[in-house]
């Protein structure tokens, strides 16, 4: 067990290191650097200024050297400054992470609460009317262009009905918990609609598979009540793959939901990383992306552990 954990952790570290390099390289391949961009917008910046500023920001050195410099710094816990926020990277990241946890956490929770029962219900009688109905809803959610849904929600609930704020994290100056929840309703609703479909489909698939198992048929043959068969025997089996997928999804929560955040002017990780990339904010983009990756890897690991725990047949052998 311990050996397995250590190995997985080492692997994760290797992946992270590799990723940091690849991302740095990719960012470097993007045309233009911050100073070029600044100079193009301000005619008064002279060649001398450009050279001076590039040297100041370290942009005149080769990409590999900059990467090495960054890596050395981050190993000591210094992740550098964010160029577009003008503060240390971690200071920008922290509040955004909190916002993202709110937004994504709530919609994740809601999606689970809706999708798991819905998926199970649909699987009980495949091809029945309930199954059709649930499938239809699930597929509809899967098939909506996200920005379209966001704008429609705002038009309906904020502009036409005037019930809910159209965007932002909270009322300016902070309006307390209720205010925060009020601002969360629309984005959470949009995200839940968009993510529930996949989860319903997956739960349904896993349930159908579980209901086919021999021991279920045995239980049925023994005359157990259908509800009891489903709940006591099939659901636990079906949950094994579902939990794995949930864990994977959970990891990806932390990279945020760029489109929804943009539409609802919500300050989350997705927008942060996006702006950092487009604004040539190497440090912030890199740390943001790596952080999101790390969490995905961690929840991958957690998924494996949970999987093993749910299914004792699996031994911890290095893959």
């Amino acid at each position, binding site marked *: 067990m311990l050996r397995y954990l250590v190995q997985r952790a080492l*692997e994760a570290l*290797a*992946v992270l290191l*590799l*990723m940091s390099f690849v991302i740095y390289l*990719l*960012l470097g*391949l*993007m*045309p233009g650097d911050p100073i070029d961009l600044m100079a193009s917008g301000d005619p008064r910046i002279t060649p001398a200024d450009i050279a001076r500023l590039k040297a100041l920001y370290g942009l005149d050195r080769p990409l590999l050297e900059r990467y090495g410099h960054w890596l050395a710094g981050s190993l000591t816990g210094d992740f550098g400054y964010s160029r577009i926020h003008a503060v240390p990277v971690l200071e920008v990241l922290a509040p955004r992470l909190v916002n993202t946890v709110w937004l994504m956490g709530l919609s994740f929770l809601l999606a689970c609460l809706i999708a798991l029962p819905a998926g199970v219900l649909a699987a009980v009688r*495949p091809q029945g009317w309930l199954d*059709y109905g649930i*499938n239809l809803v699930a*597929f*509809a959610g*899967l*098939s*909506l*262009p*996200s*920005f*379209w849904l966001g*704008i429609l929600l705002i*038009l309906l609930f904020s502009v036409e009905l005037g019930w809910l704020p159209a965007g932002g994290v909270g009322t300016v100056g902070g309006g307390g918990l209720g205010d925060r929840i009020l601002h969360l309703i629309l984005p959470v609703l949009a995200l839940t609609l968009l993510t529930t479909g996949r989860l319903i*489909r*997956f739960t349904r*698939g*896993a349930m*159908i*598979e579980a*209901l*086919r198992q021999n021991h279920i048929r045995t239980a049925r043959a023994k005359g157990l009540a259908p509800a009891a068969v489903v709940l006591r025997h099939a659901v636990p089996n079906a949950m*094994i*793959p579902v939990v*794995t*997928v949930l864990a*994977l999804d959970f*990891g990806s929560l932390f*990279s945020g939901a*760029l*489109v929804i955040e943009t539409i609802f002017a919500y300050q989350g990780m*997705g927008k942060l*990383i*996006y702006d950092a*990339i*487009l604004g040539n904010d190497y440090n912030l*983009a890199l740390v*943001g*992306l790596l952080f999101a*990756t790390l969490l*995905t*890897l961690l929840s991958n690991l957690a*998924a*494996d552990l949970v*999987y*093993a725990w749910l299914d004792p047949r*699996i*031994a*911890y052998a290095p*893959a």
Partner: protein
Amino acid sequence: MRRPEPLAWPPAGVAGARTGARRSPGRLLLQRFLRHRLALASGLLLLGLVAAALAAPLVAMALGLDANAVDLLDRFGPPSAAHPLGTDELGRDVLLRLLYGGRVSLAVGLLGALAAALIGTVIGLLAGYAGGRTDAALMRLTDAVIALPLLPLLIVLAALDYSKLGLPGGLMRSEQGSLYVILMIVALVGWTTVARLVRGATLSVREHDFVRAARALGAGPAWIMGRHILPNVLSPIIVATTLSVGNIVLTESVLSFLGLGIQPPLPSWGNMLTNAQDTIWQAPALAIWPGLMIFVTVIAFNFLGDGLQDALDPRSGQH
């Protein structure tokens, strides 16, 4: 230890493997598929859409119009005999643009899914068949790609300067350049699901007697993979690919929303929808049509994939 694949497909595509080659007659498949009425309807609808998109030049001729013909004197025109669905913000025919946009969107979806499936199949086969270190390395690579926050990366890839990478500058600079870039991006990040499916299936098929026999008879790896393993993993590939088409169509629309999608004047449903955002009050129809097309297409591909899954999975006859 491996996790099950995050797709509603029974983990092992083994059932048909006992027979080596596919024995189940096509008619049985067809029957099973036809039973799935929604899938059938979706399939027909998609065929219709593809046919309509392909017929776009004919429609253009019949109407005597050009999809890119700008008419500033007839902006936001209502539906009329000359323009069955009216005209857009530049006086262009909406119907024609929808058809041509369908060509682009469907091409991106289908070609992107195919390319991704191809890469995934090759990697999956290699990993599953070779095993050992190759397998471990390829699967870590897959993990890494899955762990990547997708959207931000798409942005980096879309903004890259491809001539720096030695890619033909002329190709990327052509009017369809953005189309190629998007196809490449989609293929580069979309192969993981198929790769995992194929690897899993390959692992289990590899040890079957008929494969051992073939190997004993001196068949080379390429032959075994192509002749014996591939046919047995084909069905999950088909299903996964079908399901991913819809996702890719959505991805294109999101990229358009971010200004990184198909570039004008080439229409796509994604960029038509994005352009309609600002005039949503003035001309809601401009937003409704492409939104509807995207929605219908994605949902149809999902139903189709669902139906194919039931049809191609021999055990689905059990209930």
